[in-house]
C-alpha cells in the first residue's frame, strides 16, 4: 500500500524592528522581565494600537522576495481567545485580507527544482512568555508581547521531513538576507508549526490533519515530522483512524504526543480590528521597497558561480550570509582573484573564525588588506606558507601585506634575499660533508642541509624560499 504525505508549514518570524508592532516599546533584549512594556501592550484600559511603519516595510520586503502579490489594502483583525500571555484577550492579526497572497520558493530537487507555493504572508503581534515554576504557578513576562511577526503559510506541498527542512532553511536564509529577521530558531525568533497528513496514494480525500508544534531546531523538525509520518502511516496500515489533533514534539524521546485537553477547534471569532483603519499601501511605496531590495540568495549564488567561476561548494559557503558574501565581494573589488580568495577564506580565514568564535564577515583584516595579501599570492610573490605567516602579522597590526613583505624579505619568493643568500652560503660552507654526499647521489641530505639552515634562521624564513635558493646553489 502506497501512502502519500502532505505537509504544510506555518512560519512565525520576528521582525527586527526597533519597536513593537503596535506600540513604541523597544524590542531590544532585557534581562529584567516586564521592563519593555507599556500600557498598550499590557492591555490596560483605554489604550490603542498604532501601526509600526518599519514592520510594514519589512513584511513587504519578505513578500516581494517570495514573489507574493501585495494587497494595496489589507485589514487587521482580532483573533479572540483567553490565555495569560495574551493581555488584551485577543491578538491583533490579519484574517480575511492579509498583506500578501500567493508567492513561491523553489527548492533544489533531483529533477532540477521543486516549487513550493505560498498561501499568504500576514502581519501580527507576538504574545508574552510564560515560565513554568516548579510549584503551582506560572510566571509571566510581557517583554516579548507585541513584537512584530510575519506569518508565512505554505500550501500543503511538502512531502518529507527533509524537504520541510530545506524549505525552512531557504525561507530563513532569505529573511536573514533581507535583514528583516535574525532567523534564530533556538532563541525563538524563527518558529515553525507543521501540519501533517497521510493518505493512501491516489485517494482524493485528504487524510486527517495533525498539527505539530514546539519544534525549535531544524534537526527536530525533521525528526518530528518523520516520526509523525511513521506514526500516521502505521495507524492507517492497521486500519485505524488518525485523529485530528495538535501534538508536541519531545526532543528527549524523539516522539510526538498529543496535547492534553486542547480545544481542538477554537472559535477565534475573528472580526476587523475597529481600532485600526484598513492598511492602505500605495504602489509607489511598494516600488520604493522593491528597488531597495538586496540581491537575494539564489541570485547571488548564480552570479557567484557564473561570474567568479566558483564551485557550488565555494559559492554556498561564501553566501552563507549576506555579510560574508559582501566581504568576499569587497575583496574581489579591491583586486583579489576570486578563486584564490575563495580558497583562502574557506581555509585560514574560516579556521580563524571558528577558533575565535566570530563570523567570517567580522574577520579583523579589512577587505583592501586581505585583497593585497591575495594579490601577493596571485603574483607569486609569496608562497601559501609565508602568506599564512604574513596574515598572522597582519592580524596584529595595520600594515599591508606588501609592507610586511618589504620588512620581512625572507617571506619573499623573489626580490631581496641577500641576507638569506649569505646565510645559506655560510651554512653550505660549513656543511661541505653534506654537500659532498648530495653531489654523490644522496639527495636525501637536502633535508638535513635544510634543517641546518632553518636552525640558523631560527625558523623565521620560509622553507619554500630556502629550498629554492639552496637548490639553485646546489645546481650551480
Amino acid at each position, binding site marked *: 500500500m502506497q501512502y502519500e504525505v502532505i505537509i504544510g508549514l506555518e512560519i512565525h518570524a520576528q521582525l527586527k524592528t526597533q519597536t513593537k508592532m503596535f506600540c513604541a516599546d523597544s524590542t531590544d533584549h532585557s534581562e529584567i522581565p516586564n521592563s519593555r512594556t507599556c500600557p498598550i501592550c499590557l492591555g*490596560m484600559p483605554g489604550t*490603542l494600537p498604532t501601526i509600526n511603519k518599519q514592520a510594514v516595510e519589512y513584511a513587504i520586503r519578505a513578500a516581494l522576495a517570495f514573489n507574493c502579490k501585495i494587497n494595496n489594502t489589507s485589514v487587521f483583525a482580532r483573533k*479572540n481567545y483567553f490565555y*495569560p500571555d495574551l493581555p488584551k*484577550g485577543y491578538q491583533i492579526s490579519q484574517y480575511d485580507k492579509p498583506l500578501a497572497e500567493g508567492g513561491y520558493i523553489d527548492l533544489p530537487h533531483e529533477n532540477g527544482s521543486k516549487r513550493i507555493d505560498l498561501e499568504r504572508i500576514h502581519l501580527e503581534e507576538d504574545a508574552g512568555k510564560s515560565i513554568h515554576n516548579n510549584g503551582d504557578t506560572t510566571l509571566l513576562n510581557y517583554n516579548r508581547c507585541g513584537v512584530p511577526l510575519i506569518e508565512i503559510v505554505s500550501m500543503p506541498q511538502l512531502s518529507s521531513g527533509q524537504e520541510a527542512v530545506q524549505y525552512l532553511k531557504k525561507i530563513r536564509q532569505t529573511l536573514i538576507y533581507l535583514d528583516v529577521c535574525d532567523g534564530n530558531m533556538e532563541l525563538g525568533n524563527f518558529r515553525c508549526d507543521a501540519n501533517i497528513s497521510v493518505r493512501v496514494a491516489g485517494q482524493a480525500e485528504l487524510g486527517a490533519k495533525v498539527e505539530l508544534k514546539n519544534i525549535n531546531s531544524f534537526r527536530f523538525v525533521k525528526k518530528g515530522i518523520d516520526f509523525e509520518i511513521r506514526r500516521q502511516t502505521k495507524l492507517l496500515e492497521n486500519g485505524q483512524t488518525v485523529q485530528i489533533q495538535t501534538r508536541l514534539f519531545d526532543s528527549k524521546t524523539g516522539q510526538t504526543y498529543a496535547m492534553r485537553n486542547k480545544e481542538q477547534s477554537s472559535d477565534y471569532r475573528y472580526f476587523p480590528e*475597529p481600532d485600526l483603519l484598513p492598511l492602505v499601501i500605495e504602489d509607489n511605496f511598494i516600488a520604493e521597497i522593491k528597488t531597495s531590495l538586496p540581491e537575494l540568495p539564489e541570485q547571488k549564488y548564480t552570479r557567484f558561480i557564473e561570474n567568479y567561476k566558483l564551485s557550488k561548494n565555494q559559492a554556498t559557503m561564501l553566501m552563507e550570509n549576506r555579510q560574508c558574501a559582501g566581504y568576499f565581494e569587497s575583496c574581489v573589488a579591491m583586486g583579489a582573484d576570486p578563486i584564490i580568495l575563495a580558497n583562502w577564506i574557506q581555509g585560514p580565514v574560516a579556521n580563524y573564525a571558528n577558533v575565535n568564535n566570530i563570523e567570517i564577515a567580522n574577520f579583523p583584516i579589512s577587505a583592501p588588506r586581505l585583497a593585497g595579501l591575495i594579490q601577493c599570492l596571485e603574483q607569486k610573490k609569496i608562497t601559501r606558507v609565508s602568506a599564512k605567516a604574513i596574515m598572522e602579522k597582519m592580524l596584529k597590526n595595520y600594515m599591508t601585506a606588501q609592507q610586511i613583505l618589504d620588512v620581512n624579505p625572507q617571506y619573499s619568493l623573489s626580490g631581496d634575499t641577500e641576507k638569506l643568500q649569505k646565510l645559506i652560503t655560510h651554512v653550505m660552507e660549513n656543511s661541505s660533508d653534506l654537500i659532498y654526499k648530495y653531489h654523490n647521489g644522496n639527495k636525501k641530505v637536502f633535508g638535513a642541509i635544510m634543517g641546518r639552515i632553518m636552525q640558523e634562521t631560527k625558523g623565521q624564513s620560509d622553507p619554500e624560499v630556502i629550498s629554492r635558493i639552496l637548490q639553485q646553489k646546489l645546481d650551480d
Partner: protein
Amino acid sequence: MVDNLSYLTIAKAVSLLKSKKLSSVELTGAYLEKIKLSQPILNSYITILEQEALVKAQIADEKYSKGTNGILEGIPLALKDNLITQNIRTTCASKMLNNFVPPYDGDTSAKLKQHGAVLLGKLNMDEFGMGSSNEHSFFGPAKNPFDTSRSPGGSSGGAASAVASSSCMAALATDTGGSIRQPASFCGVVGLRPTYGRVSRYGLVAFASSLDQTGPICKSVEDCAILLDAISGYDKKDATSVNIAKADISEISQNSAPLKIGIPDQYLSDDLDQEVGESVESAIRHLEKAGHSIQRISLPHSKYAIAAYYIIVSAEASSNLARYDGIRYGLNEETAENFDQLFKQNRNQGFGEEVKRRIMLGSYCLSAGYYDRYYSKAMKTRQLITEDFNTAFNSVDIIVTPTSPTTAFKLQEKQKDVLSMYLADVYTIPPNLAGLPSISLPCGYDKKGLPIGLQMVGRAFDESTLLSLAQDYEKKTKWHKKKPEVPDAV
C-alpha cells in the same frame, strides 16, 4: 454666595477669573461645598478630589496673577469615570476596576490639564458605559435632581445630574448610543456628541470602539463649544482620530444663517410620549418662525438601527472586555487552581449583570456560524443607515428629532424588561451609527416638571453649524434657565 457662584457658566467664570473678581479657590470651594450637600442625595460622584482640586485651584490663581493662564484655567470640571486620569482612580463604575489607578493619562484628561482645568472628581455611570439609566453601577444609581426617584439617564447619569445640580461647572462624558444626549435631556442640560474621530479615544475605556466618543455636558451651548474646542484635535495615538482642522466656534454666537431643517418621517412613532412630541413640535415651529425652513425627510432604514447597533456594540464590547482577567490589574480573587478557573472567577465577580449579558450576546454574534447572520449583517445595515443620512443631508443642513421618547423614568421601571431599555435609544442611535455629530438641549418640561430634550444632528465635522443653530434656539428660549431644586442634605 455658594448658589450664585455655582450657577456660573464657563464663559462667564473665565472672564471673572481673568478680571480677578473671583478666585479659583473660591469657585472650587463653592463647588466642593455643593458636592458635599448633593452627593448623599444624588450619588453623582464615584471619587471626589477635594485636596487635589484646591491645590490646583491655588496654582490656577497664581497663573492668573502672572498672566500665564490657559483657556480653562481654574475652571472646576468633572470627568465621567471611564475617562482615564493618571494616578487617579478610574473605575468605570465596575467592581472589576474598583481600585484601578492608571499609571498613564488619557488624551482628554491631559488636554484639560494643559488648559489649566481643575478636576473636582470622577462621575458615576452605567458600568463600562452599558446602560441608559445609571442603575448598572457598582456604586449604586445616580439620581435625577428634578426628581430623585427617577433616573438621570445613562450611561453618563452622574455627569448630567452633577451639571444640572451645579455640583460641577461642566463635565466631560462619553456617548456610544446616546449616553451623553439622553442624560442631558433627562436632566435639562446640554450634551454634545462630536463627530466620530473628532476627539481622541486614547484614554476612553473602550466599550464599542467604532462608536465611542468623548463630549461635553454643560449648562449652555457656548460652554459645550468651549470644551469641544479644548478637547478635540488629531491624536496620533488614536488611529481612528481624524486629521482635520478643529470646528470653528468663533461665530456660533452670531445669529445662525437660515438653515434647511429636516424632520424624519420615521421618528414620529407611537412610542413617543405625547408631551415630548408636543414640546418638540413647538420647538420646530419656533425654528420656522426664526427663519429656518422645515421639510420632511426619510430615513427608511431607521427601524433596523437598534438591532444593528446592539449587535455591533455587544460584539465589540465582548472583545474589548476580554482584557479584564485580574492578572495585571483589576479584581483578582486569587483562589483558583488554574488560570481558566481564575479568569472565570474574577470575571464573574467583577462584572455586573448587564455587562455579562452584553458580553454573552456579543460573543454569540461573533461566533462560528453566526458571524454572517449577525455581525456582518449589522455592519451592512449600518452602511445603509449611513447612506440614508448622506441622502438626507443633500437636501437639509440639520436634522431635528426628540432626544428620547420619554422624560426621565422611575428607577427600577425598566429593569424587568431587558429589551425596553434598548428600545428607548431609538433617536440617539442612528446618528452614531453614521458617525455624525449631535446635540441635545432643553426644549420644555412636562407636567411633572421633568425636562424634555431636543436633538439636532449635523453633517460630519460640521459642529459649527450644529452649535450655531443650537445656540440660536437657546438664546431665544428660557428652558435652560430652569434649575432643579436639589434638597439639602439637612
